[in-house]
């Protein structure tokens, strides 16, 4: 696994060995022939998704490498959220492949729940478990899905909650928190699973403007720590700052992608230019 995970010893370094261990174990379990350290964590090939007669994704080839931070941008309805949800199979792709370390997770009999443990997800609407308090939110998945002992799960949860500045709120129920606080807990919940990569589905779109900053700064810190992330976002300035690569999705396909400097300063396609201009104007 990549050295990138340990780039910043102050941030999130504690989970790196465990994460690497997890990833190797997962690769072994799934019988992957991916060489350790090399190759993308997740890859999609000709990914298509139809809702009824409506084809939302029209063949997406994509990969995310260990340690990489990828932002996915595009107009509303372009399919970028559907694409993200297809990666961890919250939407089942109509055709194509989703490969996890080279193993097609769409195959019959593949342990989808196991696979999802290795991919954290942060939702636009937070989706914290309403019946559980902040601490339990970060513990339950570890215990019920990953089989971590309760004591260890609690330690991990507190560790990640303090990283996002939510440790004092362990006893609070989700309804007692602000949007920004909820989203930071949701990030801690995802991190507590010690995933190989984290998926963000418009993490700041449901937040009041004054709360966007606190969430973006947490995500920014994670990016610096070397965590692998795929971020669907409308925050262009943020995407430019944190990403290694920006992917522009248009009408169900990846229209253009590249390093943020190139894509934002010198887009190749008229469609990309139009989108970025409209965005700056809006």
């Amino acid at each position: 696994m990549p050295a990138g995970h340990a780039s910043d010893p102050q941030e999130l370094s504690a989970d790196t060995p465990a994460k690497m261990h997890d990833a190797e174990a997962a690769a072994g379990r799934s019988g992957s022939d991916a060489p350790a350290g090399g190759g993308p964590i997740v890859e999609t090939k000709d990914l298509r998704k139809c809702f009824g007669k409506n084809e939302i994704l029209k063949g997406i080839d994509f990969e995310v490498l260990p340690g990489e931070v990828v932002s996915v941008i595009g107009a509303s309805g372009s399919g970028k959220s559907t694409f993200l949800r297809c990666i961890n199979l919250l939407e089942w792709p109509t055709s194509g492949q989703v490969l996890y370390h080279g193993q097609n997770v769409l195959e019959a009999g593949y342990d989808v729940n196991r696979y999802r443990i290795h991919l954290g997800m942060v939702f636009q609407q937070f989706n914290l478990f309403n019946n559980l308090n902040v601490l339990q939110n970060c513990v339950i998945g570890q215990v019920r899905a990953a089989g971590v002992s309760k004591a260890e799960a609690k330690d991990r949860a507190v560790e990640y909650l303090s990283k996002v500045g939510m440790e004092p709120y362990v006893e609070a129920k989700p309804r007692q928190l602000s949007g920004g606080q909820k989203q930071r807990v949701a990030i801690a919940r995802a991190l507590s699973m010690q995933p190989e990569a984290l998926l963000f589905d418009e993490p700041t779109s449901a937040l009041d403007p004054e709360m966007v900053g606190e969430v973006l700064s947490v995500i920014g810190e994670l990016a610096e720590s070397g965590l692998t992330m795929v971020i669907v976002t409308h925050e262009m300035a943020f995407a430019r700052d944190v990403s290694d690569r920006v992917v522009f999705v248009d009408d169900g396909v990846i229209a253009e992608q590249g390093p943020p400097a190139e894509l934002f300063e010198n887009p190749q396609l008229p469609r990309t230019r139009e989108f970025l201009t409209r965005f700056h104007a809006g």
Partner: protein
Amino acid sequence: MNTSAVAGAVAVLAADGDDGFFIQVWDILREYWPWLLKGVGVTMLLALTGTIVGIGIGLAIGAIRTIPRDAHSGGLFRRIVLTLVNALLAIYIEVFRGTPMMVQAMVVYFGLDMAFGISLNVLHAGLLVVSINTGAYMAEIVRGGIQAVDPGQTEAAKAVGMSHWATMRSVVLPQTIRNILPATGNEFVINIKDTSVLMVIGTAELYFQGKTIAGISYETFPVYMLIAAIYLVLTFTTTRVLRLLERKLDGPENFTLATSSTTPESILRPGGETLAGRSR
């Protein structure tokens, strides 16, 4: 009760002599209180057991009916079995919601004996009937309760890798139980009253005891007034207790901030250690 009987009863009620209405009621209470107490006990046992078992049946059916059945979530055999199970559950619900409990009591009590030679005592037969009857209603109530849980909750549970059963147990059903509590209280109150139909098989619940006492004492009106009053006390107390339970399940309005040396001051709200709840 016909008009003249009512008129007579009112006259008795108004009379303030030794044979006054309240004296009669008091005499009945004094003489037959062990019978009445037994009736209350049996009625509450039937209603409570029926409701609790019914909730269990309802939640189990709710969890079974929400098992994903799409093409990618299992083999053909699994899907066929699930479809079959769902059909059987639908039949159970329709049959037990669509026939009177009085008829169900007769069919179960006498039917089990004639068809299978299973001879239940009347209390056990009553418990069985009221439980499966309530279960059918609860299944539908639970279905609504599950639908009322935000789909995002299930998605978040899936996203951390939880199985259907883990998701149901830890996330969806606890929220469902809160959602269905008012309707469940309703079922409980209905059960307290409607278990009176079990007297057709001779279960010694409150109405059956009343009927017996009336038959012995010939004091029909005071006995049934007394029975009605007892039913009212039972149902009223029950609704109050359930309301308290609802409030308890909602949890405290406030929470305490854990103190920690790693907490930046900026995160703590000014002016105190506790934050008021935001929801209401």
